[in-house]
C-alpha cells in the first residue's frame, strides 16, 4: 500500500517537476535509494520525509501539494490507467460521487493489501454532497480534492469544492453546479492501450 503511495509521489515529482528535482528530494529525504517500488511496503515515516523535503524545496504548503498530486493522478497522460479505473465509478459525475464510498472496497478487490481510508458520501440536498474521510492516510482528503477537481473536468461537470474541518475530521463539500457543463473526456468500457507509465 505504502509503495503505491510513494511511487505515485515519485511519478508526480518526476513528471511535473523533472528528474533532477526528484533526485534532490531523494537526497534531502536521505532515502538511500532512488526509486520506490509500487508493490513493496515502506515505513509511512519515509513518505513523511519525502513530502517534507518536497514541501521545503518547492515552497508549497502541504495541502496544495497533495491537491496537485490528486489532480496529477487523474489528468496526467502517464496515469491514464488510473483515470480509467476511477471512471468505472459511474456514467456521470454525480454517480461517480455517490460511488466513492465503494472506493476502498474496490481498491481492495484489485489488491488485497490496499487499504484506503473509508469514505462516506451524503447527498444533503440541493445538489450538495458531503464527503467524510476515515483515518489511515494523513492528508488523504487533500489528495481527494485534487482527484475530485480533475474528475469533474473529466466528466465535463461544473462543481464547486470546499475543503473544511468538520466535527469528525476533514470533509469536502461538493456543489454540483452543472452536471453537463462541458464535453468532458471520452471513456469506453474497454481500454485502448491504457498504461501507467511508471
Amino acid at each position, binding site marked *: 500500500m505504502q509503495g503505491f503511495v510513494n511511487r505515485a509521489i515519485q511519478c508526480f515529482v518526476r513528471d511535473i517537476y523533472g528528474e533532477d528535482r526528484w533526485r534532490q528530494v531523494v537526497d534531502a529525504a536521505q532515502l538511500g535509494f532512488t526509486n520506490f517500488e*509500487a508493490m513493496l511496503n515502506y515505513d509511512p515515516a519515509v513518505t513523511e520525509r519525502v513530502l517534507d523535503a518536497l514541501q521545503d524545496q518547492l515552497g508549497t504548503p502541504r495541502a496544495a501539494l497533495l491537491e496537485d498530486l490528486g489532480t496529477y493522478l487523474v489528468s496526467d497522460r502517464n496515469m491514464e490507467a488510473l483515470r480509467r479505473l476511477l471512471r*468505472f465509478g459511474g456514467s456521470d459525475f454525480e454517480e461517480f460521487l455517490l460511488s466513492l464510498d465503494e472506493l476502498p472496497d*474496490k481498491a481492495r478487490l*484489485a489488491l488485497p493489501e490496499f487499504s484506503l481510508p473509508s469514505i462516506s458520501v451524503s447527498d444533503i440536498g440541493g445538489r450538495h454532497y458531503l464527503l467524510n474521510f476515515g483515518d489511515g492516510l494523513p492528508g488523504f482528503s487533500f489528495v481527494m480534492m485534487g482527484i475530485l477537481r480533475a474528475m469533474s473536468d473529466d466528466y465535463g461537470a461544473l462543481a464547486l469544492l470546499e475543503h473544511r474541518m468538520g466535527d469528525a475530521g476533514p470533509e469536502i463539500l461538493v456543489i454540483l453546479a452543472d452536471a453537463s457543463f462541458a464535453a468532458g473526456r471520452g471513456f469506453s468500457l*474497454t481500454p485502448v492501450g*491504457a498504461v501507467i507509465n511508471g
Partner: protein
Amino acid sequence: MVSKDGLFQALDQLMPLHAVADFDGQIVHVGPTLAKLIGQRRSYHALSDLFRVIKPKKDRAFQDLQGLAGRTLMLELRLEQPEVLKAHCVVLGDKLIFALSFGFTIVDAVRRFGLSDSDFAATDQTIGMLYLSEAYALSLGEFRNLSLRLEGAKRLAEVEAHTDALTGLFNRRGLDAALSDLQQSGQEFAIMQIDLDHFKQVNDGLGHAAGDGVLTRVAEILTLETRKHDLVSRNGGDEFTIVLADVTDSATAEEIGNRIVERIKQPMTLPQGECRVSASVGTAFSFSQDIRDVEALIEKADASLYQSKSDGRGRQTLHV
C-alpha cells in the same frame, strides 16, 4: 393484469439483453442490447433465425420449447462472426422469456459491439468485472516490472561479485567460477600465474595511489596481450592469473608470457613519478597433466612462478 407493452418496458430495463418468443418459436420482442447486437436492419422472425442452440444439445431444434424452460442454455447468435451467449429461459403466460448474458468473452464483446454501461442492467456486475480485469492487468504489470528490475539488479550484483573494483578484471571469486566451468568443459587450457616484482617499493616510495596506478596499467597490458577468450583476474595485491583457453602446446603461452614480461619491464610514467616494476611468470598446462585437476595445475604454475623469482625475476618459466 399488466399490458404487453408495460411488460416489455419493464423487461427492457431489468435485463436489456433478452428475447421474448411465443410457444411457436416466433420472436415477439427483443431487449435494447440484443437489438444493438443484431443491428436494426436484420430481420428476424423465428428464434431459429437468430439463434443456434449449443447447449444443452448442439443444434437442438427450437421445438418443444417449454422443455427449455428453467434450464441454462448456450445460444449462438447468428452473426457473420457468431457470439455465444448464456441464456436462461422462463415461461410467463403464453410467452417464453430468454434472459441472456455474455460469458467470459465479455471484454471482447464490449469492444466489438461498442457497449456502454447503459447497455447493462443496473445490478449487472459486468462493469465491475471489466474494472477488475483492468485493475488486475495493471497490478500484474507492476509485478512483472518489479521482477524484471530485481532480475537486473541480481545480474548486476553477480557481475560485481566477480569483478575486481580497481582494475575491472575478474577477482578471485570470478576466477574460481570460471575455472570450475572450464574443468567441466573438458577443453585444454593453461594457467599463467603472474606476480609483480618490486611492487612494494612503489607503494612505499610513491604512495598507494601510485601503486594503484601501476596495478591498473598492468591490468591494461594483460588484457591487451591476451586473446579475447582468455580470462584475466587479479587475485588481490599484486598477484594476477591468466587462464589461456584452448591451449594444446606451449608455444602460444610462451609468446604471450614473453610479451607480458617485456612490456611490464618498461618504465611507467605516473602522475606521482616514474615507476619500474617487472613480472615473474609461471605457467602450467592441462595437456601435460595426467589428471585434470585445477588445484594441482595451480600448484605447478605457482612452483614455476617461484622458479622465475629465484632465477632473478622479470622472466617466465613454463612447466611442460
